[in-house]
């Protein structure tokens, strides 16, 4: 049974530990996850589909990279797994918002057409009426 201090020492001296870039690089990448979490409650119009789509592919690739690299980097793997989840969620939120926007535009376009059609009929009636009256 390793004691807590022994485990801490093992972590401190590990090849992917806090003395190496294998640790601090992934820590920097957690910034993506935190940014995604910060954006979760905001209006979907703030989500960039370009960036979010790229992040989804990027995190899949880096999960595989973290698994295959020597030494195996579980911290990086965890970081990109959570980033993948967050970015997929954001992408689905954006997609839902974007398709509802398109529906609204189509309806508005339809309303405009209906309104224009009504106006054209009115004009025709008005033109016909004076001629009738005259």
């Amino acid at each position, binding site marked *: 049974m390793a004691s807590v201090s022994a485990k801490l020492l093992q972590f401190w001296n590990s090849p992917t530990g806090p003395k190496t870039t294998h640790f601090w*690089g992934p820590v*920097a990448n957690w910034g993506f996850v*935190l*940014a995604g979490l910060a954006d979760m409650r905001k209006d979907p119009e703030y989500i960039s589909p*370009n960036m979010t789509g790229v992040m989804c592919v990027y995190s899949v690739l880096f999960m595989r*990279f973290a698994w295959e690299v020597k030494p195996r980097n579980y911290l990086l793997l965890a970081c990109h797994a959570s980033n993948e989840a967050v970015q997929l969620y954001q992408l689905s939120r954006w997609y839902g918002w974007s398709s509802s926007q398109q529906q609204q535009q189509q309806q508005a376009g339809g309303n405009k057409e209906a309104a224009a059609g009504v106006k054209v009929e009115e004009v025709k009636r008005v033109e016909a009426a004076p001629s009738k009256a005259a």
Partner: protein
Amino acid sequence: YTFDAFAQQHANCSTGRYDIFCSCPCSEANALARYAFRDSPTHPTLGCLTPNNMTIGQKLKAFWNHPAGPKTIHFWAPTFKWGISLANIADINRPADKISLPQQCAITATGVIWSRYSTQITPVNYNLLAVNAFMALTGGYQLFRKISYDMAQQTPAATA
């Protein structure tokens, strides 16, 4: 003239290795390896070749078969990281009020930190440095747009 005879004669070659990554200073060894042992059945590698005396075809083959080459994730994962910078460039005309401040902060910070680290690892990874430097630049530009927009929004409210 077998590979063993060749190895015996060039036993004083600096690295003692006869694979594609050796840097044998003996030009005769290089020449012989290139022409005599390229397709040797006992040595599937290309013999004692250096980048200085490899043909384009041999270089491409070396790249294709490299342990960090295009058949591996070690190549594609860092290569795809360019996508983040390209997405930022695609968004260059996105209205500034729609930019996500936390995301651009994360991109810029990651770019800066990784640019530094790619110069501190062994070997220095210039590809990684380039990717992350570009990420920091594009992220920084989007941050600048967002922050100047936010500040412009605040001043009329402050005066009003």
